[in-house]
């Protein structure tokens, strides 16, 4: 009996339980070990999937695409868990939270991990929807963790907007289900993605078009596509920093994952429709996020807008739909997750060191916290798409995909908005580096603060320069499969 999938879901669930009963101060370790265990446990299955062996039994379905997301979630989980420890301890020293809060945090953290993982492993799109809704419900507590007024406000908006979105997504799923009913009838597996995908070419095109509109609006809300993105800057800025990283680097990906699954179906039924919508939403997200980045004052809000921007780029990449563009988009997902968590973690250090999120009141970072400043600088350069970091490779691959597909106007728009983002981001971040530090600055210390950042920095640097053949093969096989080139 295969229990691969159950294991990776049960580990975080068990970790959640354990952190509920673990002795004082041990909850953090439980999270670190738990998430690391998830990552390790999922590796064999994922490698199998990359090599072409789909794990499919019971209600589970794990192929290459899911594996990519599982690995990202696992990795970001480990990093965030490590970073959380020091971050929360510091919060506790400041008196912002109590011991009980830390315990609650870790319970929710593990549950959050479990729900996100479950999005990527289930076979039925209905269950996938449930899992996505669960991520909202669990993470709402993490967003509202600080119980400050602003945090509550953010959590409330997050909860309401995402619930509305997800409801619309369910309408889309219903329509897909309806469109399949004349082929698949009352098959209890009619909502299973592989079955739907197989039957996709025979689905009703009118229904599928409408369904995809609902789906991209519904899941796009969760993913942060403009104009449904409105919850995102609030939630990212108010939640504890490791959670911001998780939201940005893992949660948005889950919603993206759902959209991708439906895009594949819709493309098989009505070629071109879903892609056009995705390109449209992607460009809009990129443009609007660029504008917001130019005017942001709050570092975490700016990073949140940057997530919107990158989700836009990724969406465009998938929308273009050539193998090269999809390859680029897949790579960009990894690059964005790694780099964005790096930036979030270093921003977290800055926030705790200076006690403010307002970028105008942070000066002299290079002098007061050289290590963090280095990581923040490198992360900034990486996230705005400069080599030798991974985001650069992702961006130019997507650009190349657009140009190769003859979509010069899309390439032009991407390039133009990237410049906007670039200008805003670098101006804000690098003005923090200069000048003289003023006031009392308590630079965060501890190996667990720097270790995840160092690891992420090395990963983004390595991926920016090199791509091992195995990884390239895996991504290409997904891209080829995704675009139906195989």
């Amino acid at each position: 009996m295969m229990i691969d999938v159950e294991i990776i879901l049960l580990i975080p669930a068990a970790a959640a339980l354990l952190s509920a009963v673990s002795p004082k101060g041990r909850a953090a370790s439980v999270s670190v070990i738990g998430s690391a265990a998830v990552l390790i446990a999922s590796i064999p299955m994922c490698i199998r999937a990359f090599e072409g062996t789909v794990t499919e039994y019971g209600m589970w379905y794990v192929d290459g695409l899911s594996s990519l997301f599982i690995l990202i979630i696992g990795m970001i989980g480990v990093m965030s868990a490590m970073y959380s420890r020091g971050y929360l301890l510091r919060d506790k020293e400041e008196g912002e939270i109590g011991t009980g809060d830390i315990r609650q945090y870790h319970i929710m953290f593990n549950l959050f991990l479990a729900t996100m993982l479950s999005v990527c492993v289930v076979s039925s799109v209905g269950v996938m929807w449930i899992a996505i809704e669960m991520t909202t419900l669990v993470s709402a507590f993490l967003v509202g963790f600080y119980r400050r007024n602003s945090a509550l406000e953010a959590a409330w908006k997050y909860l309401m907007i995402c619930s509305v979105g997800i409801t619309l997504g369910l309408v889309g799923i219903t329509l897909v289900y309806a469109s399949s009913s004349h082929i698949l009838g009352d098959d209890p597996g009619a909502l299973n993605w592989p079955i739907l995908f197989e039957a996709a070419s025979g689905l009703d095109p009118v229904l599928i078009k409408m369904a995809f509109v609902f789906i991209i609006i519904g899941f796009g809300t969760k993913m942060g596509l403009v104009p449904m993105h409105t919850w995102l800057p609030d939630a990212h800025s108010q939640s504890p920093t490791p959670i911001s990283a998780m939201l940005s680097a893992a949660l948005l990906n889950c919603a993206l994952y759902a959209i991708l699954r439906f895009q594949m179906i819709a493309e098989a039924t009505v070629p071109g429709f879903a892609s056009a919508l995705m390109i449209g939403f992607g460009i809009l997200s990129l443009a609007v996020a660029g504008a917001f980045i130019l005017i942001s004052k709050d570092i975490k809000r700016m990073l949140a807008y940057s997530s919107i921007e990158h989700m836009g780029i990724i969406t465009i990449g998938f929308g273009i739909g050539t193998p090269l563009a999809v390859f680029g988009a897949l790579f960009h997902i990894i690059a964005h997750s790694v780099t964005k968590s790096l930036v979030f973690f270093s921003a977290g250090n800055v926030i705790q060191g200076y006690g403010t999120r307002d970028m105008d009141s942070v000066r002299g970072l290079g002098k007061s916290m050289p290590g963090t400043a280095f990581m923040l600088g490198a992360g900034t350069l990486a996230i705005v798409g400069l080599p030798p970091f991974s985001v650069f490779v992702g961006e130019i691959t997507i650009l190349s995909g657009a140009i190769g597909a003859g979509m010069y106007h899309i390439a032009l728009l991407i390039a133009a908005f990237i410049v906007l983002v670039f200008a805003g981001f670098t101006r804000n971040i690098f003005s923090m580096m200069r000048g003289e530090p003023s006031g009392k600055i308590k630079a965060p210390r501890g190996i667990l603060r720097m270790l995840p950042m160092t690891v992420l920095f090395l990963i983004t640097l390595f991926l920016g320069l090199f791509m091992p053949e195995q990884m390239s093969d895996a991504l290409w096989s997904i891209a080829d499969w995704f675009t139906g080139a195989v």
Partner: protein
Amino acid sequence: MFSVYEELFISLMFIPAAAGAIVGMIPIKCSGNVAAFLCGTSAFFGILSYPLYLYGGDIAFTFPLPSAWGPYSILIDELPAMMISLSSAVFLAVLAHMIFSVSVSAEGRYSSTICALFISCMLAMCADTVILLLIAWEAVTLSTFLMASGKNGAAAWKFLVIAHIGGLMVICAFLVMLSYSGDHTLSSWSDLGNAMGLPASCGAIALLFMGFGTKLGLIPFHVWIPDLYASAPTHTSALMSTVSSNAAVMILFKSIFGYIGVSEGMYVLAVILMAASSFTAVWSALESLVQTEPKRILAYSGMENMALVLLCFSIGILFSDGGSPGLMTVVLVAGLFHVMNHSVFKSLMILAVGSAEDCTGETAIEKMGGLAKIMPAFSLVALVAVLSMAAIPPFNGFASEWLMIQSMMGGEGIHMTEIILPLGVAVLGISGMMAAVSYARLYGFMFLGRPRSEKPVSSKVGTAVLVPMAALALLCFAMGIFCSQIMEKLARGVAAATSIPSDDSFVNHLSGTLNMPIMAGILLMAIFAAYVLSRAFRKKSARSPTWDCGTPLDENMQYSSMGFSQPLVRVFHPLYGDVVEISDDESSENRKRYSIKFAEPFVEHLYVPIGNLIMRGARRVGSTQNGNIQTYLGYILAVLVVLLVAVRFV
């Protein structure tokens, strides 16, 4: 051919610099100098690349780990080898100047970015795969930014953004080329223009021109240059204006004439590019006349020189239409030669100015003067640089400008160029002369005359810095004397890098009626003879104060540098947009102080309005995030309704 040697050479050239980049990050005191020394080692081996090429042919190397976009490989053939050798020499000289300057104790971080700049520039010049080229080129931008972001953060940011715009243009152009070629190896690209068709290749050429133009100061992408030069450390400006310009010109040349390949029908494009570069040349020469800081003068002069190089390239495109491959080779050689020469004399001049600024502690030209008496050796090498920059024979600046004019004069009679080429010559003449004026001004007001401030001049730079400067000065002279040989080598390199049909007619132009060694010999002999002959009279020479109509001269009673350029400012008044500001002079009652302010019209009328427009748009977009959840839900409702209706009816 000797693959082991190739690997050895490549590792000797890059590993010390890479090590330096890491060593520089270590926060200990001497790490800066150690890193600079390591980089110097690399640069020393870099110089060997051309001799090695002559000895053993192409040097190729592929890095064992692949990137997402194919392998990293480099290929050093004739043209890159020459460029790398020369750039390494300049690099070495600048590094030596940095290490020898006692006033500048190399900061570790700074040295480490210099190492990064070395690696990225050299890789950009010899890259053989697209990804390596693009990464290296962007890394040049990045390391320049890191080296420059010292005093004036805003200037460095402006540079970064504009350079990034340029970088994206370059990236897009290369991606377009790649989409037609399908091969990541650059050396397999040739004449992609045939496959791309005229519109795409013209578009790609225009993108490349603008993209690299952002680094070279093509108007209107030049606004970062003066500020950055004025605020960046001396060695940053010295490397930025020479080595990275070399790389930019080199890649631009290879892409336009090698990868894409010019073809007939690019007449309009060529004329547009000529207009842009001519305008840049004249404009920057004009602007350089009214700058008050030596470094800004050098910034504009760098723009002027690079604009001339770009002018050469656009004339090269023009010649392709006229079907004159020989002349095309000549004009391209002129451009490439000029960029090489520029890197030598400009680095020399920047180093001299930097040292002078270190000694006087002044950055305004109005406060300097009379340094020639205090620092005679400095002023001599600076004079060499000035003469080279002003294209005075027998120095190298003359050689390349001569070849430019030569090719343009030779080109008349070619289809459709009757009016354009004379205008090109006129541009060359007027901008070259204006540049000469501003160098005369620079030199005259920094080194000659009487001191304009009472601040004592300290010689804290030491004398060791003269060694690299003298080497550069010698190089200026040698490259001028041996210009014919260099031109021939360059012509060979051009033929190898492009598919321009070889046509022996260019040989006539390359060294036809110019014999630099003999001409220079006669000149020197004539000067020497005049000296000896007049010495024969053996007359005494006395010293006395400058003639002053009887009143003692104080430091204000000297011609001022702004006054020096006033006549030209008056002549070209409509172009300057200068504003006379009248303010009360505090020091004396009832007196007004008149001062002229020169605004950069491109900042005022282009960048500021665009920036305001973007910011206004961004704020308007920002107001959509108004904090009200009902509005947010309204967006969802609206987009849902709109999309549903659209799907229904479209």
